[in-house]
């Protein structure tokens, strides 16, 4: 029960959803293409890149939390393992960063599969605890094994190279991350619109009914757990290579909470919601920092008020508010002779 109890993300504004699948992707691509016009310097690029990397994690996490209805409070563990795995292979063993990234992501997939098998049998808060415990174990190990990981102060990470060329400079990274985000959203939406995606949503809707339709809950949960871990690990490795530096804080419990908050804040079971949540919560502290000692109070208040007044999250609430207007607009456009 627990986590799937209460209001399920509604299927309303479905006309929009169908439209959103193709047009939404185009709109996202357009937004990514036009955004640089509003980015005056490398600092703003940096924020945009971090938004993109966080959004990739959230798109993957949303598949698990929003669509399949399984909570994870340990995804920062996967993020951190991807980052450290790739960093360690590249920095300490001289692997080319692209190979180390792939190897670390594959290793995390394997690990997610191995731990997912026993813990995904747990439900609701028990699953939350188990994933949280996993995340904490990862972050303690990363902070303690300082000979390999550099300890709590972190370690330097070599830059990403593709076919011998170093990926450097904010602009290059911006386009790389932008392209990867579009690919992530495309892949996630493909999955949701497939029979497997329906099976996942069915599990969220009613595990009993899903079972009665031949849907193997354990297998599907495990596969989506692994997929979302892969998103997190790959984004983690990219973040590490981009920043040139990684600390165990990125694998911490607080970061896990941050990731889930982004997903829920943006709107569960909405891929664009996940992107929106990541964008808002990544940029918000940058604005709030001018409030200095009031920053924490404001961040907490914004989170609370948003969830109290938009319990479905930003994207679904906006879609519901703007949906009818948008449909009217489209209908009007159709009526006009071209």
């Amino acid at each position, binding site marked *: 029960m627990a986590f799937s109890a209460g209001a399920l993300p509604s299927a309303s504004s479905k006309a929009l959803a169908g439209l959103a699948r193709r047009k939404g992707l185009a709109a996202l691509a357009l937004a990514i293409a036009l955004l640089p*016009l*509003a980015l*005056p*310097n*490398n*600092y*703003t690029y*940096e*924020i945009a890149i*971090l938004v993109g990397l966080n959004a990739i994690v959230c798109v993957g996490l949303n598949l698990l939390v929003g669509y399949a209805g399984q909570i994870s409070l340990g995804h920062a563990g996967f993020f951190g393992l991807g980052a450290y795995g790739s960093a360690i292979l590249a920095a300490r063993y001289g692997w080319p960063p692209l190979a180390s990234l792939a190897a670390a992501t594959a290793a995390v997939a394997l690990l997610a599969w191995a731990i997912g098998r026993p813990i995904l049998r747990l439900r609701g808060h028990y699953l939350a605890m188990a994933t949280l415990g996993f995340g904490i174990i990862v972050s*303690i190990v990363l*902070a*303690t094994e*300082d000979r390999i990981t550099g*300890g*709590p*102060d*972190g370690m*330097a990470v070599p830059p990403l190279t593709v076919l011998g060329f170093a990926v450097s400079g904010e602009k290059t990274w911006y386009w790389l991350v932008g392209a990867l985000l579009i690919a992530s959203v495309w892949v996630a939406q493909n999955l949701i619109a497939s029979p497997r995606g329906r099976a996942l949503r069915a599990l969220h809707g009613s595990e009993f009914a899903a079972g009665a339709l031949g849907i193997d809950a354990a297998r599907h949960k495990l596969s989506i757990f692994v997929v979302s871990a892969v998103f997190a690990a790959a984004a983690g490795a990219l*973040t590490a290579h981009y*920043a*040139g*530096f*990684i*600390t165990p*804080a*990125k694998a911490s419990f607080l970061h896990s909470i941050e990731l889930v908050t982004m997903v829920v804040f943006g709107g569960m079971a909405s891929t664009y919601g996940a992107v929106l949540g990541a964008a808002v919560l990544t940029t918000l*502290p*940058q604005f709030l*920092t001018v409030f*200095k*000692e009031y*920053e*924490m109070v404001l961040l907490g208040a914004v989170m609370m008020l948003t969830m109290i007044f938009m319990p479905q999250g930003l994207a679904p609430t906006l879609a519901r508010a703007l949906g009818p207007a948008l449909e009217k607009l489209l209908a009007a456009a159709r009526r006009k002779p071209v």
Partner: protein
Amino acid sequence: MNFRTLLAIGGLSIAFSAPAQEPIRVGSFLAVTGPAAFLGDPEQKTLELYIEKLNAAGGLLGRKFQLFAYDSAGDAEKARGYVKRLIEQDKVDVIVGGSTTGETMAAVPLAEAAGTPFISLAGAVVIVEPVKKWVFKTPHTDRMACEKVFVDMRARGATKAALISGSGGFDRSMRAECLKVAAKNGIQIVADESYGAGDTDMTAQLTKIKNTAGVQAVLNAGFGQGPAIVTKNYRQIGISAPLYQSHGVASKQYVKLSGDAAEGVRLPAAALLVADTLPDSDPQKKVVTGYKRDFEGRFKQEVSTFGGHAYDGLMLAVEAIRRAGSTNKAAVRDALESIRGYVGTGGVVNMSAQDHMGLDLSAFRMLEVRNGDWMLVK
């Protein structure tokens, strides 16, 4: 006309309208909140206080100072973002900041790439070793703290010591350095325990140390409430070997928290902590009493050596700009590297191309808690 041209024109018009009054831009990113807030908080206050004082005294080179300070909450990724903001958006002339080693190390590549002089306020030796062209630091290193403690242990006849450390960056880094330099200083580490962030009881770890054969002294690397709990537990279970703390607890607060249990505890720290009891002949006397008076007068809270690090960082930057005669970054950097004999709260600084910290062991004083206050150990 696009957005960027607009911005560029905007920027130009500002530049033309007020060339002479252009302020000296000092950037800072500090852990004002988060677990390392006790570092960042006094550091931030110190910077604000002295920027104000400098401006009140007319600024430098006919220009006022402007402080750009961000709260990195001790998070390396946030620190990176803000350093980029300082360099790219605020276009600062010099950066004084980085409360923790993690934040500092995340910022180092950016400062190096941009060619911005960066004076770190964090402890670990990796910041200046190997030497990085644009990076300097003001606090003593954790390695120096280890050496200072080990020298004192030997002087008291101890050769076998136990380590207990927290799990934060400062703690782990100091632990690693101590393990590295122990043998060289004739100390054998016979027990190595740790405790976690937020732990409330260390009697288990200390009991283990107590039952380890041959422990003649114990060193606790850590900051925050952990060392105070260790101190209380230490007395509770009745370990008789002398207890040393690190410079991470170099503030009155540690003594206040630990109460009677702190009696006899020693630690290496800067002269600032014993400002009032320094002999008048001490070269640092004037600086440390002055800073103490300013800070305590303004904020009604006791000075800590951390705020002192920020004071030193800012003053070194000011001195370098004064010597360079401009805010030309390369000139400021060269001036920083050439500073000799600067007397700060942390000690007498002698920078060089090989040493971007400029402090030696003499900058550390060995202090002992006696009657609820820090006293110089002669």
